């Protein structure tokens, strides 16, 4: 009957008004690295924030990896620490299976593949890995959050990146 047809119409008024929980947090921090003939200089600030609150004044963004490369990583601290932990494990595995320390360029390739492995739930970090390459020259590899890798003579990542990068470009 006509009444029954009228009652069949359903309207869906479910609208998402706000996101309940967001998996990432931007915790600021800036890192800079410059490569030379047989060295790399790296620098980092030591502030860790959550919105406008300061969570730590003594948190460095430079991490020493098991093979004596340096990992510079800013963004979401949870992902930064997990990345470092996972990397340390993979570096040790490499040492045990290949009977030598992983070189920085090989490590960079490994990081790139690892990060792209999480393409659909990325590590929310801007990472840079630095060290000496096989010939002893300083090398810097910079990654985006899904592992796009570029080798650079200098790198700058983090919240003050727009301010510092042109200074490195000019010199």
């Amino acid at each position, binding site marked *: 009957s006509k009444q029954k047809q009228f009652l069949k119409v359903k309207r869906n008024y479910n609208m998402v008004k706000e996101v309940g929980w967001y998996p990432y947090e931007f915790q600021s921090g800036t890192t800079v690295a410059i490569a030379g003939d047989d060295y790399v200089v790296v620098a980092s600030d030591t502030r860790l924030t959550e919105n406008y609150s300061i969570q730590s004044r003594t948190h460095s963004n430079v991490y020493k990896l098991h093979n004596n490369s340096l990992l510079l990583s800013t963004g979401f601290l949870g992902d930064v620490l997990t990345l470092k932990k996972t990397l340390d494990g993979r570096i040790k595995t490499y040492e045990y299976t290949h009977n030598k320390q992983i070189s920085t360029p090989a490590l960079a390739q490994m990081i790139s593949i690892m990060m792209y492995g999480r393409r659909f739930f990325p590590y929310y970090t801007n990472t840079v890995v630095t060290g000496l390459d096989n010939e002893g020259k300083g090398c810097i590899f910079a990654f985006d959050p899904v592992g796009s890798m570029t080798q650079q003579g200098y790198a700058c990542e983090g919240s003050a990146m*727009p*301010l*510092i*990068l*042109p*200074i490195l*470009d*000019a010199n």
Partner: protein
Amino acid sequence: MGDDIMNYNGGVALAMKGKECVAIACDKRYGVQNRTIATNFTKIFEYGPHCYVAFCGLATDVQTVAERLKFRTNLYELREQRKLKPNVLYNMLTNLLYEKRFGPYFIFALVIGLDPKTGETFVYDSDNIGAISDNVNLATVGTASEYIFGLGELLFKPDMTPDELFEATSQSLLNGFDRDSASGWGAVVYVIEKDKVTIRELKARQD
């Protein structure tokens, strides 16, 4: 949403102070998102022998505010029978912008000036609803403002001569906007001293 409007046309401007001289510089790009339409759109306007203003943001508002401010300054000069001072110009501009507090113009402004008798220098910047700033050493507005700020802070020294000021301003501007796709295509630098204004066009990466 607000951020997209400010990046719609692109553009950047920088102002710096020296010893009895001030410099203001801007790029010349006029674009619509990622398309460049013209490369002769300067964003600096003159309101007096030693008063200049730069506007960056939505191009239609750049032109409208420039013209509306000119209207007000013309009337001021007719009524008062004298030329504007930089701080008067600045107050007039912030008043104009605050009138549109709940439906604002999408521009950020820089006002610079020099008092020809005393050599006192003025550099002010304003947000799009007319927030008043102090008389600062260095100010930037536009899509590449953060890039230019870094170099500007590094290259700024107190009491620079006009030539040093020109060098510092040009280097900050050029290296800064090279990192921004919405600014560039040439630059213009105005150096204002007590007795003259020097306008120089810079050769920059044409992209």
